[in-house]
Protein backbone atom coordinates (compact mmCIF):
# COMPACT_ATOMS: atom_id res chain seq x y z
CA UNK A 1 0.00 0.00 0.00
CA UNK A 2 1.92 2.93 -1.13
CA UNK A 3 2.86 5.67 -3.50
CA UNK A 4 4.81 5.13 -6.69
CA UNK A 5 6.81 7.56 -8.79
CA UNK A 6 8.91 6.98 -11.86
CA UNK A 7 10.66 9.20 -14.38
CA UNK A 8 12.21 8.17 -17.71
CA UNK A 9 14.07 11.11 -19.22
CA UNK A 10 14.27 11.26 -22.99
CA UNK A 11 15.91 14.68 -23.10
CA UNK A 12 19.64 14.51 -22.12
CA UNK A 13 19.69 18.12 -20.93
CA UNK A 14 17.33 17.04 -18.13
CA UNK A 15 19.64 14.26 -16.89
CA UNK A 16 21.38 16.55 -14.39
CA UNK A 17 17.98 17.22 -12.79
CA UNK A 18 16.86 13.58 -12.36
CA UNK A 19 17.46 13.42 -8.60
CA UNK A 20 15.91 16.81 -7.94
CA UNK A 21 12.75 15.92 -9.88
CA UNK A 22 12.50 12.43 -8.36
CA UNK A 23 12.86 13.84 -4.84
CA UNK A 24 10.14 16.39 -5.50
CA UNK A 25 7.82 13.69 -6.89
CA UNK A 26 8.46 11.40 -3.93
CA UNK A 27 7.86 14.21 -1.47
CA UNK A 28 4.34 14.67 -2.85
CA UNK A 29 3.42 11.07 -2.02
CA UNK A 30 4.85 10.84 1.50
CA UNK A 31 1.34 10.56 3.02
CA UNK A 32 0.63 7.45 0.97
CA UNK A 33 3.57 5.71 2.60
CA UNK A 34 5.05 7.30 5.71
CA UNK A 35 6.77 4.11 7.00
CA UNK A 36 9.71 3.79 4.66
CA UNK A 37 10.86 4.63 1.18
CA UNK A 38 13.29 3.74 -1.54
CA UNK A 39 14.60 4.95 -4.86
CA UNK A 40 16.58 3.60 -7.76
CA UNK A 41 18.68 5.90 -9.91
CA UNK A 42 19.86 4.82 -13.36
CA UNK A 43 22.99 6.32 -14.94
CA UNK A 44 24.51 8.50 -12.23
CA UNK A 45 28.24 8.58 -13.11
CA UNK A 46 29.27 8.94 -9.48
CA UNK A 47 27.10 6.14 -8.07
CA UNK A 48 27.46 3.81 -11.05
CA UNK A 49 30.56 4.81 -13.03
CA UNK A 50 30.74 3.42 -16.57
CA UNK A 51 32.93 0.39 -16.97
CA UNK A 52 32.31 -0.76 -13.41
CA UNK A 53 29.66 -2.84 -11.64
CA UNK A 54 27.75 -1.55 -8.64
CA UNK A 55 26.06 -3.45 -5.82
CA UNK A 56 23.65 -1.81 -3.36
CA UNK A 57 23.76 -3.22 0.17
CA UNK A 58 22.02 -3.01 3.52
CA UNK A 59 23.44 -3.93 6.91
CA UNK A 60 27.03 -3.18 6.01
CA UNK A 61 29.26 -1.08 8.22
CA UNK A 62 32.72 -1.94 7.02
CA UNK A 63 33.65 -2.94 3.46
CA UNK A 64 37.34 -3.51 4.22
CA UNK A 65 37.07 -7.32 3.80
CA UNK A 66 35.74 -6.74 0.27
CA UNK A 67 38.51 -4.26 -0.58
CA UNK A 68 41.06 -6.78 0.57
CA UNK A 69 39.50 -9.38 -1.71
CA UNK A 70 39.05 -7.29 -4.89
CA UNK A 71 41.20 -4.51 -6.33
CA UNK A 72 39.96 -0.92 -6.71
CA UNK A 73 36.71 -1.25 -4.75
CA UNK A 74 35.02 2.07 -4.01
CA UNK A 75 32.48 2.43 -1.20
CA UNK A 76 29.74 5.07 -1.00
CA UNK A 77 27.80 5.17 2.31
CA UNK A 78 24.27 6.57 1.83
CA UNK A 79 22.24 6.42 5.05
CA UNK A 80 21.11 2.84 5.69
CA UNK A 81 22.36 1.85 2.22
CA UNK A 82 25.95 1.27 1.14
CA UNK A 83 27.00 1.21 -2.52
CA UNK A 84 30.15 -0.55 -3.66
CA UNK A 85 31.53 -0.49 -7.19
CA UNK A 86 34.51 -2.14 -8.79
CA UNK A 87 35.94 -2.73 -12.29
CA UNK A 88 34.68 -6.34 -12.49
CA UNK A 89 31.56 -8.06 -13.77
CA UNK A 90 28.42 -7.84 -11.68
CA UNK A 91 28.58 -11.58 -10.96
CA UNK A 92 32.18 -11.35 -9.79
CA UNK A 93 31.33 -8.45 -7.52
CA UNK A 94 28.27 -10.21 -6.12
CA UNK A 95 30.27 -13.38 -5.44
CA UNK A 96 32.95 -11.36 -3.67
CA UNK A 97 30.33 -9.51 -1.58
CA UNK A 98 28.73 -12.78 -0.52
CA UNK A 99 32.09 -14.25 0.40
CA UNK A 100 33.44 -11.28 2.32
CA UNK A 101 30.41 -9.48 3.77
CA UNK A 102 28.25 -12.30 5.17
CA UNK A 103 25.83 -10.01 7.03
CA UNK A 104 25.00 -7.86 4.02
CA UNK A 105 21.67 -7.90 2.17
CA UNK A 106 21.98 -7.17 -1.55
CA UNK A 107 19.23 -4.74 -2.62
CA UNK A 108 20.44 -4.01 -6.12
CA UNK A 109 23.15 -4.84 -8.61
CA UNK A 110 24.21 -4.18 -12.16
CA UNK A 111 26.20 -1.78 -14.23
CA UNK A 112 23.84 1.16 -14.27
CA UNK A 113 21.54 1.26 -11.26
CA UNK A 114 21.93 2.38 -7.65
CA UNK A 115 19.19 1.27 -5.25
CA UNK A 116 18.75 3.09 -1.95
CA UNK A 117 16.23 2.33 0.80
CA UNK A 118 15.50 3.16 4.38
CA UNK A 119 12.90 3.22 7.11
CA UNK A 120 11.40 6.46 8.31
CA UNK A 121 9.72 9.36 6.60
CA UNK A 122 10.41 9.61 2.85
CA UNK A 123 11.53 13.24 3.19
CA UNK A 124 14.23 12.18 5.66
CA UNK A 125 15.44 9.49 3.29
CA UNK A 126 15.73 11.76 0.27
CA UNK A 127 17.56 14.31 2.41
CA UNK A 128 19.98 11.81 3.91
CA UNK A 129 20.73 10.37 0.48
CA UNK A 130 21.25 13.75 -1.10
CA UNK A 131 18.89 12.52 -3.78
CA UNK A 132 18.35 16.02 -5.18
CA UNK A 133 21.99 16.11 -6.27
CA UNK A 134 21.88 12.82 -8.17
CA UNK A 135 21.78 12.62 -11.94
CA UNK A 136 20.85 10.08 -14.57
CA UNK A 137 18.39 9.08 -17.26
CA UNK A 138 15.80 7.16 -15.28
CA UNK A 139 14.61 6.81 -11.71
CA UNK A 140 11.89 5.10 -9.73
CA UNK A 141 10.74 5.68 -6.17
CA UNK A 142 8.29 4.39 -3.64
CA UNK A 143 6.76 5.42 -0.34
CA UNK A 144 5.51 2.51 1.75
CA UNK A 145 2.61 1.94 4.13
CA UNK A 146 3.39 -1.63 5.16
CA UNK A 147 0.36 -3.94 5.09
CA UNK A 148 1.33 -7.37 6.35
CA UNK A 149 5.12 -7.45 6.48
CA UNK A 150 7.49 -5.66 8.82
CA UNK A 151 8.73 -2.11 8.42
CA UNK A 152 12.38 -2.78 7.61
CA UNK A 153 14.75 -1.28 5.05
CA UNK A 154 14.71 -4.51 3.04
CA UNK A 155 10.91 -4.45 3.06
CA UNK A 156 10.95 -1.09 1.29
CA UNK A 157 10.67 -0.89 -2.49
CA UNK A 158 12.10 -0.93 -5.13
CA UNK A 159 12.73 -4.64 -5.17
CA UNK A 160 15.77 -5.09 -7.35
CA UNK A 161 16.54 -8.78 -7.66
CA UNK A 162 17.96 -9.03 -11.18
CA UNK A 163 20.69 -7.10 -12.99
CA UNK A 164 19.64 -3.46 -13.35
CA UNK A 165 16.01 -4.47 -12.73
CA UNK A 166 13.58 -2.81 -10.30
CA UNK A 167 9.96 -3.34 -9.36
CA UNK A 168 7.72 -1.12 -7.26
CA UNK A 169 4.18 -2.09 -6.28
CA UNK A 170 1.05 -0.44 -4.96
CA UNK A 171 -1.61 -2.89 -3.85
CA UNK A 172 -1.64 -6.35 -2.36
CA UNK A 173 -1.17 -9.72 -4.05
CA UNK A 174 -3.66 -12.40 -3.01
CA UNK A 175 -1.77 -15.60 -3.91
CA UNK A 176 1.84 -14.62 -3.38
CA UNK A 177 2.48 -17.34 -0.76
CA UNK A 178 1.87 -20.06 -3.34
CA UNK A 179 3.97 -18.38 -6.04
CA UNK A 180 6.76 -17.91 -3.48
CA UNK A 181 6.68 -21.67 -2.82
CA UNK A 182 6.78 -22.40 -6.55
CA UNK A 183 9.71 -20.07 -7.13
CA UNK A 184 11.56 -21.52 -4.14
CA UNK A 185 11.08 -24.97 -5.62
CA UNK A 186 12.79 -23.58 -8.74
CA UNK A 187 15.75 -22.49 -6.61
CA UNK A 188 14.84 -18.81 -6.17
CA UNK A 189 15.99 -17.34 -2.83
CA UNK A 190 14.02 -14.60 -1.04
CA UNK A 191 15.21 -11.80 1.25
CA UNK A 192 11.91 -10.75 2.87
CA UNK A 193 8.35 -11.83 3.57
CA UNK A 194 7.07 -8.99 1.39
CA UNK A 195 4.45 -9.89 -1.24
CA UNK A 196 5.99 -7.42 -3.68
CA UNK A 197 9.30 -9.25 -3.59
CA UNK A 198 7.48 -12.26 -5.02
CA UNK A 199 6.41 -10.11 -7.97
CA UNK A 200 9.97 -8.91 -8.50
CA UNK A 201 11.43 -12.43 -8.25
CA UNK A 202 8.81 -13.69 -10.70
CA UNK A 203 9.67 -11.02 -13.27
CA UNK A 204 13.41 -11.60 -12.90
CA UNK A 205 12.85 -15.35 -13.18
CA UNK A 206 10.90 -14.89 -16.42
CA UNK A 207 13.48 -12.46 -17.86
CA UNK A 208 16.25 -14.93 -17.02
CA UNK A 209 14.34 -17.60 -18.91
CA UNK A 210 14.35 -15.44 -22.01
CA UNK A 211 11.08 -13.54 -21.85
CA UNK A 212 11.19 -9.87 -22.78
CA UNK A 213 9.80 -7.35 -20.30
CA UNK A 214 6.38 -7.21 -21.91
CA UNK A 215 6.07 -11.00 -21.95
CA UNK A 216 7.25 -11.26 -18.35
CA UNK A 217 4.56 -8.82 -17.22
CA UNK A 218 1.88 -10.60 -19.23
CA UNK A 219 2.85 -13.81 -17.49
CA UNK A 220 2.66 -11.98 -14.16
CA UNK A 221 -0.91 -10.88 -14.95
CA UNK A 222 -1.83 -14.48 -15.71
CA UNK A 223 -0.31 -15.89 -12.54
CA UNK A 224 -0.88 -13.25 -9.87
CA UNK A 225 -4.20 -12.64 -8.16
CA UNK A 226 -4.92 -9.47 -6.24
CA UNK A 227 -4.67 -5.74 -6.69
CA UNK A 228 -1.58 -4.15 -8.16
CA UNK A 229 -0.17 -1.22 -9.98
CA UNK A 230 3.43 -2.05 -10.90
CA UNK A 231 6.26 0.04 -12.23
CA UNK A 232 9.11 -2.12 -13.55
CA UNK A 233 12.42 -0.81 -14.88
CA UNK A 234 15.42 -2.45 -16.53
CA UNK A 235 18.77 -1.42 -17.99
CA UNK A 236 16.98 0.19 -20.91
CA UNK A 237 13.21 0.17 -20.21
CA UNK A 238 10.38 1.52 -18.10
CA UNK A 239 7.10 -0.41 -17.87
CA UNK A 240 3.71 -0.07 -16.15
CA UNK A 241 0.99 -2.66 -15.65
CA UNK A 242 -2.19 -2.88 -13.53
CA UNK A 243 -4.43 -5.76 -12.53
CA UNK A 244 -7.77 -6.46 -14.20
CA UNK A 245 -9.82 -4.48 -11.67
CA UNK A 246 -7.39 -1.55 -11.64
CA UNK A 247 -8.44 -0.02 -8.32
CA UNK A 248 -5.00 1.11 -7.28
CA UNK A 249 -4.35 4.50 -8.82
CA UNK A 250 -1.90 5.17 -11.65
CA UNK A 251 -1.29 8.07 -13.96
CA UNK A 252 1.13 8.27 -16.85
CA UNK A 253 2.29 11.56 -18.32
CA UNK A 254 4.23 11.71 -21.54
CA UNK A 255 6.06 14.54 -23.31
CA UNK A 256 8.78 14.49 -25.96
CA UNK A 257 11.23 15.19 -23.11
CA UNK A 258 10.14 12.53 -20.62
CA UNK A 259 7.72 9.79 -19.56
CA UNK A 260 6.56 9.79 -15.95
CA UNK A 261 4.32 7.59 -13.86
CA UNK A 262 2.85 8.28 -10.43
CA UNK A 263 0.06 7.15 -8.12
CA UNK A 264 -1.38 10.64 -8.02
CA UNK A 265 -1.27 13.73 -10.15
CA UNK A 266 0.28 15.89 -7.44
CA UNK A 267 3.56 14.00 -7.97
CA UNK A 268 3.49 14.79 -11.69
CA UNK A 269 2.68 18.44 -11.04
CA UNK A 270 6.31 19.12 -10.10
CA UNK A 271 7.64 18.14 -13.55
CA UNK A 272 8.75 20.74 -16.10
CA UNK A 273 6.31 21.06 -18.98
CA UNK A 274 3.62 18.92 -17.35
CA UNK A 275 0.93 21.32 -18.56
CA UNK A 276 1.63 20.19 -22.11
CA UNK A 277 1.92 16.48 -21.27
CA UNK A 278 -0.41 13.77 -22.52
CA UNK A 279 -1.82 12.40 -19.27
CA UNK A 280 -3.69 9.11 -19.12
CA UNK A 281 -4.51 6.21 -16.86
CA UNK A 282 -3.10 2.82 -17.83
CA UNK A 283 -5.77 0.33 -18.87
CA UNK A 284 -6.22 -2.85 -16.85
CA UNK A 285 -3.85 -5.71 -17.76
CA UNK A 286 -2.28 -3.70 -20.55
CA UNK A 287 1.51 -3.61 -20.48
CA UNK A 288 3.06 -0.23 -21.29
CA UNK A 289 6.77 -0.26 -22.09
CA UNK A 290 9.09 2.58 -23.01
CA UNK A 291 12.61 1.75 -24.14
CA UNK A 292 15.59 4.04 -24.25
Amino acid at each position, binding site marked *: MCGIVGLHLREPTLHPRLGELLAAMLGQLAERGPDSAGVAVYGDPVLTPPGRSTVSLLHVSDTTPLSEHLPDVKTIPLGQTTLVHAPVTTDTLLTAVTATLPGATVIGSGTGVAVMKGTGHPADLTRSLGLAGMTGWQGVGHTRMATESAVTPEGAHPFSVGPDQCLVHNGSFANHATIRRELRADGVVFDSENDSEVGARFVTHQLARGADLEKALRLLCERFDGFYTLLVSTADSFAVVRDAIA*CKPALIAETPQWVAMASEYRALAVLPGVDAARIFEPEPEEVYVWTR
Partner: protein
Amino acid sequence: MDPMTVDLAATPVRDLNQALHAPEPEQRWRVRNPRGAHAIACGLTRPLSVEIDGHVGYYCAGMNQHAAVTVNGNAGVGVAENMMSGTVRIRGNTSQSAGATAHGGLLVIEGDAAARCGISMKGVDIVVGGDVGHMSAFMGQAGRLVVCGDAGDALGDSLYEARLYVKGAVKSLGADCVEKPMRDEHLTELAGLLKAAEFDEDPAAFRRYGSARRLYHFKIDNAY
Protein backbone atom coordinates in the same frame (compact mmCIF):
# COMPACT_ATOMS: atom_id res chain seq x y z
CA MET B 1 -17.24 42.07 -9.49
CA ASP B 2 -14.05 40.04 -9.69
CA PRO B 3 -14.21 36.60 -8.14
CA MET B 4 -12.51 35.89 -4.83
CA THR B 5 -9.16 34.35 -5.77
CA VAL B 6 -7.38 31.74 -3.68
CA ASP B 7 -3.90 30.50 -4.55
CA LEU B 8 -3.40 26.99 -3.21
CA ALA B 9 0.36 27.43 -3.57
CA ALA B 10 0.01 29.79 -0.59
CA THR B 11 -3.26 28.76 1.11
CA PRO B 12 -4.03 25.28 2.49
CA VAL B 13 -7.06 23.47 1.05
CA ARG B 14 -8.52 23.37 4.55
CA ASP B 15 -8.61 27.18 4.70
CA LEU B 16 -10.22 27.36 1.26
CA ASN B 17 -12.92 24.87 2.27
CA GLN B 18 -13.55 26.70 5.53
CA ALA B 19 -14.05 29.91 3.58
CA LEU B 20 -16.41 28.16 1.16
CA HIS B 21 -18.37 26.72 4.13
CA ALA B 22 -18.66 30.09 5.87
CA PRO B 23 -22.18 31.27 6.70
CA GLU B 24 -22.16 34.03 4.08
CA PRO B 25 -19.43 33.30 1.57
CA GLU B 26 -18.56 35.28 -1.52
CA GLN B 27 -20.57 34.09 -4.53
CA ARG B 28 -17.75 33.66 -7.07
CA TRP B 29 -14.41 31.99 -6.49
CA ARG B 30 -11.32 31.35 -8.55
CA VAL B 31 -8.81 28.78 -7.31
CA ARG B 32 -5.27 28.73 -8.67
CA ASN B 33 -2.44 26.17 -8.40
CA PRO B 34 -4.48 23.16 -7.24
CA ARG B 35 -1.56 20.92 -8.31
CA GLY B 36 -3.48 17.70 -7.63
CA ALA B 37 -4.53 18.54 -4.08
CA HIS B 38 -7.38 16.48 -2.62
CA ALA B 39 -10.87 17.38 -1.41
CA ILE B 40 -10.91 20.81 -3.02
CA ALA B 41 -14.32 22.51 -2.76
CA CYS B 42 -15.98 19.50 -1.16
CA GLY B 43 -19.05 19.69 1.04
CA LEU B 44 -20.41 22.92 -0.47
CA THR B 45 -24.02 23.67 0.40
CA ARG B 46 -24.74 26.97 -1.36
CA PRO B 47 -25.16 28.08 -4.97
CA LEU B 48 -21.60 29.37 -5.28
CA SER B 49 -19.54 29.41 -8.43
CA VAL B 50 -16.04 27.97 -8.05
CA GLU B 51 -13.61 27.82 -10.94
CA ILE B 52 -10.37 25.89 -10.48
CA ASP B 53 -7.44 26.45 -12.85
CA GLY B 54 -5.39 23.27 -13.08
CA HIS B 55 -5.57 19.58 -12.22
CA VAL B 56 -7.23 18.47 -8.99
CA GLY B 57 -6.70 15.34 -6.86
CA TYR B 58 -9.23 13.01 -5.24
CA TYR B 59 -12.82 13.93 -4.31
CA CYS B 60 -12.99 17.41 -5.79
CA ALA B 61 -16.51 18.82 -5.25
CA GLY B 62 -17.40 15.74 -3.18
CA MET B 63 -21.00 15.69 -1.88
CA ASN B 64 -21.70 18.95 -3.68
CA GLN B 65 -25.02 20.69 -2.99
CA HIS B 66 -26.19 23.59 -5.18
CA ALA B 67 -22.73 24.87 -6.15
CA ALA B 68 -21.33 25.12 -9.68
CA VAL B 69 -17.74 23.88 -9.70
CA THR B 70 -15.61 23.98 -12.84
CA VAL B 71 -12.17 22.41 -13.17
CA ASN B 72 -10.03 23.75 -15.99
CA GLY B 73 -7.94 20.59 -15.99
CA ASN B 74 -8.14 16.92 -15.05
CA ALA B 75 -9.75 15.50 -11.93
CA GLY B 76 -8.54 12.64 -9.76
CA VAL B 77 -10.47 9.77 -8.19
CA GLY B 78 -14.10 10.26 -7.18
CA VAL B 79 -14.80 13.74 -8.52
CA ALA B 80 -18.26 14.90 -7.39
CA GLU B 81 -18.71 11.69 -5.39
CA ASN B 82 -22.12 11.51 -3.75
CA MET B 83 -23.11 14.87 -5.28
CA MET B 84 -26.68 15.85 -4.34
CA SER B 85 -27.33 18.83 -6.61
CA GLY B 86 -25.57 21.59 -8.52
CA THR B 87 -23.21 21.25 -11.46
CA VAL B 88 -19.65 20.04 -11.71
CA ARG B 89 -17.82 20.47 -15.00
CA ILE B 90 -14.41 18.99 -15.76
CA ARG B 91 -12.76 20.43 -18.85
CA GLY B 92 -10.18 17.64 -19.00
CA ASN B 93 -10.23 13.93 -18.10
CA THR B 94 -11.26 12.28 -14.85
CA SER B 95 -9.80 9.35 -12.98
CA GLN B 96 -11.83 6.39 -11.74
CA SER B 97 -15.17 6.55 -9.91
CA ALA B 98 -16.27 9.94 -11.24
CA GLY B 99 -19.69 10.77 -9.82
CA ALA B 100 -19.67 7.66 -7.60
CA THR B 101 -22.95 7.19 -5.67
CA ALA B 102 -24.11 10.69 -6.62
CA HIS B 103 -27.78 11.38 -5.97
CA GLY B 104 -28.42 14.41 -8.10
CA GLY B 105 -27.08 17.36 -10.03
CA LEU B 106 -25.16 17.32 -13.29
CA LEU B 107 -21.59 16.13 -13.79
CA VAL B 108 -20.07 17.07 -17.14
CA ILE B 109 -16.73 15.57 -18.18
CA GLU B 110 -15.51 17.11 -21.40
CA GLY B 111 -12.66 14.61 -21.83
CA ASP B 112 -12.50 10.91 -20.94
CA ALA B 113 -13.57 9.28 -17.70
CA ALA B 114 -11.60 6.28 -16.42
CA ALA B 115 -12.98 3.10 -14.85
CA ARG B 116 -16.16 2.94 -12.75
CA CYS B 117 -17.60 6.25 -13.93
CA GLY B 118 -21.00 6.56 -12.25
CA ILE B 119 -20.51 3.54 -9.97
CA SER B 120 -23.60 3.05 -7.75
CA MET B 121 -25.07 6.27 -9.18
CA LYS B 122 -28.30 7.16 -7.38
CA GLY B 123 -29.91 9.84 -9.49
CA VAL B 124 -27.14 12.02 -10.85
CA ASP B 125 -26.85 12.91 -14.51
CA ILE B 126 -23.37 12.36 -15.95
CA VAL B 127 -22.46 13.46 -19.45
CA VAL B 128 -19.04 12.46 -20.77
CA GLY B 129 -17.64 14.02 -23.93
CA GLY B 130 -15.09 11.25 -24.49
CA ASP B 131 -14.83 7.62 -23.44
CA VAL B 132 -15.58 5.86 -20.15
CA GLY B 133 -13.52 3.02 -18.67
CA HIS B 134 -14.48 -0.46 -17.54
CA MET B 135 -17.29 -1.16 -15.06
CA SER B 136 -18.90 2.21 -15.62
CA ALA B 137 -22.35 2.58 -14.03
CA PHE B 138 -21.68 -0.62 -12.01
CA MET B 139 -24.75 -1.16 -9.80
CA GLY B 140 -26.19 2.11 -11.13
CA GLN B 141 -29.44 2.63 -9.27
CA ALA B 142 -30.91 5.76 -10.84
CA GLY B 143 -29.97 8.72 -13.01
CA ARG B 144 -28.59 8.94 -16.53
CA LEU B 145 -25.10 8.36 -17.92
CA VAL B 146 -24.40 9.76 -21.38
CA VAL B 147 -21.19 8.78 -23.18
CA CYS B 148 -20.33 10.56 -26.42
CA GLY B 149 -17.31 8.31 -27.04
CA ASP B 150 -16.81 4.61 -26.35
CA ALA B 151 -17.49 2.55 -23.22
CA GLY B 152 -15.06 -0.01 -21.76
CA ASP B 153 -15.71 -3.53 -20.54
CA ALA B 154 -18.72 -4.55 -18.46
CA LEU B 155 -20.79 -1.40 -18.94
CA GLY B 156 -23.70 -1.26 -16.52
CA ASP B 157 -22.83 -4.44 -14.65
CA SER B 158 -25.48 -5.38 -12.05
CA LEU B 159 -27.47 -2.35 -13.10
CA TYR B 160 -30.64 -1.32 -11.29
CA GLU B 161 -32.60 1.52 -12.88
CA ALA B 162 -29.93 3.94 -14.17
CA ARG B 163 -30.32 4.70 -17.89
CA LEU B 164 -27.24 4.64 -20.12
CA TYR B 165 -26.76 6.30 -23.52
CA VAL B 166 -23.62 5.59 -25.54
CA LYS B 167 -22.75 6.98 -28.95
CA GLY B 168 -19.61 4.96 -29.68
CA ALA B 169 -18.67 1.33 -29.28
CA VAL B 170 -19.35 -0.62 -26.09
CA LYS B 171 -16.53 -3.07 -25.48
CA SER B 172 -18.82 -5.37 -23.52
CA LEU B 173 -21.98 -5.19 -21.46
CA GLY B 174 -21.89 -6.22 -17.81
CA ALA B 175 -24.14 -8.79 -16.16
CA ASP B 176 -27.82 -7.91 -16.56
CA CYS B 177 -27.19 -4.89 -18.83
CA VAL B 178 -28.91 -4.99 -22.23
CA GLU B 179 -29.49 -2.70 -25.17
CA LYS B 180 -32.97 -1.25 -25.23
CA PRO B 181 -34.91 0.53 -27.94
CA MET B 182 -34.58 4.31 -28.29
CA ARG B 183 -38.09 5.68 -28.19
CA ASP B 184 -39.12 9.30 -28.62
CA GLU B 185 -39.16 9.91 -24.89
CA HIS B 186 -35.54 8.77 -24.72
CA LEU B 187 -34.47 10.97 -27.60
CA THR B 188 -36.11 13.90 -25.86
CA GLU B 189 -34.47 13.04 -22.54
CA LEU B 190 -31.07 12.65 -24.19
CA ALA B 191 -31.41 15.89 -26.14
CA GLY B 192 -32.09 17.68 -22.86
CA LEU B 193 -29.03 16.16 -21.20
CA LEU B 194 -26.74 17.03 -24.14
CA LYS B 195 -28.08 20.55 -24.15
CA ALA B 196 -27.56 20.92 -20.40
CA ALA B 197 -24.00 19.71 -20.87
CA GLU B 198 -23.53 22.11 -23.79
CA PHE B 199 -22.54 19.32 -26.19
CA ASP B 200 -23.45 19.57 -29.85
CA GLU B 201 -24.34 15.94 -30.52
CA ASP B 202 -27.18 14.26 -32.39
CA PRO B 203 -29.30 12.18 -29.98
CA ALA B 204 -30.23 9.83 -32.82
CA ALA B 205 -26.62 8.68 -33.03
CA PHE B 206 -26.77 7.13 -29.53
CA ARG B 207 -27.88 3.71 -28.30
CA ARG B 208 -29.65 3.10 -25.04
CA TYR B 209 -28.78 0.48 -22.41
CA GLY B 210 -30.57 -0.52 -19.26
CA SER B 211 -31.22 -3.29 -16.76
CA ALA B 212 -32.65 -6.59 -17.93
CA ARG B 213 -33.88 -6.92 -14.31
CA ARG B 214 -32.88 -10.56 -14.16
CA LEU B 215 -30.71 -10.03 -11.06
CA TYR B 216 -33.57 -8.54 -9.10
CA HIS B 217 -34.17 -11.80 -7.28
CA PHE B 218 -31.61 -14.33 -6.12
CA LYS B 219 -31.72 -17.39 -8.32
CA ILE B 220 -29.31 -20.19 -9.00
CA ASP B 221 -28.91 -18.82 -12.54
CA ASN B 222 -27.56 -15.57 -11.18
CA ALA B 223 -24.51 -17.17 -9.63
CA TYR B 224 -21.21 -16.84 -11.41
